[in-house]
């Protein structure tokens, strides 16, 4: 991955940490970045601070506090970086909308947070496929496959519950007699 990609990725982390209204420490940010395995080797806190310093992502005073005083807690992001992050977000490729809606619709009977987690997991795999260099069309096809695979058991259960198979059997019997 290019240095620029890392830069944008780090910015995105900083942006999301701030927008989720949580007190985010550098340790938390580091854990997040390392957990997602973007770098081949886990980064140290020092690396992260150097990266932030190099890219001038933080206001000088806050960075100074973190570097020299080891202060924890929320940090600020240079306001000039915000438009770049928003641009990066708007360039994010979305998964096939119809498949996404289908998953949400068919899994209506499951808990709301399970439904959201299922949709977000499918989306994560889609984004991962794209980041591996897969074309949007192929990643979209894989998304459709995963989405259909995920809803098939629920569709069958639903069909069983409303007795569709019985109706089909009755219809077939009537045709044969």
């Amino acid at each position, binding site marked *: 991955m290019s240095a620029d990609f890392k830069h944008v990725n780090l910015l995105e982390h900083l942006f*999301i940490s701030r927008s*989720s209204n949580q007190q985010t420490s550098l340790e938390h940010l580091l854990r997040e970045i390392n957990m997602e395995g973007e770098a081949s080797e886990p980064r140290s806190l020092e690396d992260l601070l150097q990266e932030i310093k190099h890219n001038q992502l933080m206001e000088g005073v806050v960075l100074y506090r973190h570097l020299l005083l080891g202060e924890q807690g929320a940090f600020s992001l240079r306001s000039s970086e915000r438009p770049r992050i928003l641009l990066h977000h708007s360039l994010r490729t979305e998964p096939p909308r119809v498949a996404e809606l289908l998953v949400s619709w068919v*899994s209506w009977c499951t808990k709301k947070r*399970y439904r959201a*987690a299922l949709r977000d*997991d499918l989306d994560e*795999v889609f984004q*991962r496929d794209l980041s591996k260099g897969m074309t949007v069309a192929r990643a979209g096809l894989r998304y459709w496959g*995963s989405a259909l695979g995920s*809803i098939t058991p629920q569709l069958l259960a639903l069909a069983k519950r409303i007795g569709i198979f019985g109706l089909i059997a009755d219809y077939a019997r009537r045709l044969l007699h």
Partner: protein
Amino acid sequence: MKQGEFFMTDLTDLTLIEQQMLLAIMRLHPNAYGVSIRDEIKTRTNKEYSFGSIYAVLERLENGGLIESREGEATAVRGGRKKLYFTIAGAGEKALQASLNAMDAMRSGLKLGGAFA
């Protein structure tokens, strides 16, 4: 091991996918969520479950008090959306232990593929 020891409880009534799910959650602790659980099972068993099946099992396990879930923080990879993390509960560990013990008791002393299991 006494014969019939494990027939007195329904703790052993875990299906294969439930066992795999509980083991994956233990292995991935504290980072067990849908994608990581599916990847872990796929890496270790070469079996790829759909997310629908995974969440159906997770819901069943949580309703049975065998696992607990909590919402994580928003991450960049998910476009700022939160992950739903799972951890095994005490009852889950007991059920898994009982289920695996029952399986071991069944296969103890049997020759599988020319070797003792």
